[in-house]
């Protein structure tokens, strides 16, 4: 068993005829993910990915025709907020948004709307979800992961791959790898994912990969102390990041002296969560 996505996921791809959307759809199909539909306004009636996936003009049409239950979004930033709202309005309960660069104020409105509807969003600005051996939704490279008992949750992309690959090489497989995204406003937080891993019978341990900016790691530390029975190992990127500078991700910035790696590391250590000095130490910390 995995969290969020598995063999039963019926995936819809928004932006399937774009360069990124088409490329990653092929990768997801090759991994064994069931892609049941694609959406690109104006291209309804066509077929994508060598005739394997029907394309619709709207998400609502795609849902009616295919009973898609999860959507992944590859549309450009200026249309992405609309794409998320469209999926939510069409009744999709789980939306994964890969797109980077959505304005924060758009995301504030999107989050408020999704919260009212009870829709789960993962991302934006994230690599998506990978349940090894079951399904891949997003852009994570499938072959670096292998099935096993470790849950992985991270704000980053390639840093996550690095950690997942290091785990796989040491024979430590994963239930699900979740990229929650590097933006200031995201749909799913560390705490949300930790709760899912805590409730997932197959997940035995969790690896959490945080970074500078915001206070999501501090809330995760409190949640671990109060609610989790499964062991958690952490890594926090950005010990050397200067204040006031955005480190690539829109959310990775030390503002007003808060959001530093030191504070986050201290929060984890205070609740007994071992924090790796560098990513390759993570497998050593897993008991």
């Amino acid at each position: 068993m995995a969290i969020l996505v598995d063999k039963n996921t019926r995936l819809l791809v928004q932006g399937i005829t774009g360069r990124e959307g088409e490329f990653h759809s092929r990768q997801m199909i090759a991994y064994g993910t069931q892609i049941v539909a694609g959406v690109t306004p104006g291209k309804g009636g066509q077929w994508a990915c060598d005739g394997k996936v029907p394309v619709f003009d709207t998400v609502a049409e795609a849902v009616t025709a295919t009973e898609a239950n999860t959507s992944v979004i590859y549309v450009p930033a200026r249309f992405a907020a609309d794409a998320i709202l469209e999926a939510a309005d069409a009744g999709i309960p789980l939306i994964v948004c890969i797109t980077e660069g959505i304005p924060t104020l758009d995301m504030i409105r999107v989050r408020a709307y999704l919260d009212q509807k009870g829709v789960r969003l993962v991302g934006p600005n994230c690599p998506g979800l990978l349940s090894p051996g079951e399904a891949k939704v997003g852009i994570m490279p499938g072959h670096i992961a292998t099935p096993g008992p470790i849950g992985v949750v991270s704000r980053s992309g390639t840093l996550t791959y690095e950690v997942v690959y290091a785990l796989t090489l040491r024979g430590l497989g994963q239930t699900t790898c979740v990229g929650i995204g590097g933006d200031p406003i995201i749909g799913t937080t560390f705490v949300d994912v930790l709760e899912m891993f805590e409730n997932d019978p197959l997940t035995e341990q969790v690896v959490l990969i945080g970074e500078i900016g915001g206070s999501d790691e501090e809330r995760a530390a409190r949640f671990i102390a109060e609610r989790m029975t499964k062991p958690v190992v952490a890594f926090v990127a950005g010990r050397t990041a200067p204040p006031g500078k955005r480190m690539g991700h829109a959310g990775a910035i030390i503002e007003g002296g808060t959001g530093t790696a030191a504070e986050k590391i201290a929060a984890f250590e205070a609740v007994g969560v071992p924090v790796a000095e560098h990513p390759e130490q993570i497998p050593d910390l897993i008991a």
Partner: protein
Amino acid sequence: MKLHEYQSKRLFAAHGVPIPRGDVATTPEEARRIAEELGTPVVVKSQVLVGGRGKAGGIRLAHTPAEAERVAGEVLGMEIKGLPVRKVLLDEAADIRQEIYLGVVVDRAACRPVMMASSEGGVEIEEVARINPEAIKKVTIDPFLGLRGYQTVTLAKGIGLAGEYRRAFDRIARGLYQAFLACDASLAEINPLVVTGEGSLLAVDGKMVLDDNGLFRHPDLAQMRDVDEETPAEREAREAGLSYVQLDGEIGCMVNGAGLAMATMDIIKHFGGAPANFLDIGGGAKAERVATALRLILADPNVKAVLFNIFGGITRCDEVAKGIVTAFEEVEPTVPMVARLVGTNEAEGRAILEDSGYRLITATTLAEAAQKAVAAAGGELTV
């Protein structure tokens, strides 16, 4: 992207927030003319994108146009926290009776904008939060409902503002929120908002930080970017679509992915070195982009070694290796280069680097790569 005080205040004024009469000068003569028009006394305020201007002597009072000219000349010659003062704002001096703080920020945890007010104006809000957090009153704004009247009453009452100013406060709070929305800001603050001797409220100082992701719909605001906010290298990187932050260490870093780039900087420090930069070359790692990145890194005279840390996922290591080799053809490597390629097609990627004829130090683990880069920068390791 940060805006200057004068830019922020003009944007606030466009949304109904009262600001002092004033204008911007780049020369002492201009300052004199502005002071003559405004009438004295005037406040001469350095326009640099750092806090603590007052303490640094970058905010001065002038009682005559001649004094304004002299003071402006002094301030325009200053450097504040390493930033040269290129402009001064001359504002009509206000008769200040009370100073308060009013600001809007994005509350990441609440996923909403939050408006904050404090009776301790003129002090940085972070300072107040540390020393006297009870002095800060907050209201969370529903993005669909906007800032409501009862919320501005809550703030005004919370900071002990006298009843007679509450209507003016309400108008200013709404104007500030409108400016925040209209500019896609992540922060908009008036500090201080003052009660004047004439019994009115006036935004004496202002600050805005804009969301870079929102700039595409504000070309007018994007043009306001101050050249000194970034180093020339950071500017070139931004224009090339690279995410680059200059630091003061000696090991240049080229990494794919922001999180991994930060982790690479950290591990260099862990092994006793210091990173010269943060650099995310992004996905795909096309040769042209790698070349631009390499040129930027090597242009930094502090750089004694370069570390390539590439995790091949969807991006294949052999493609990245080809990009690096092509970049070397354009930009001659002048310092030791350490390359670590791991993930998809890593063996092919390493072979391409080895066969290229360029002298590269290779590593398989991140720890090994960082240690080799530190040794190479210290002159203890050569190819």
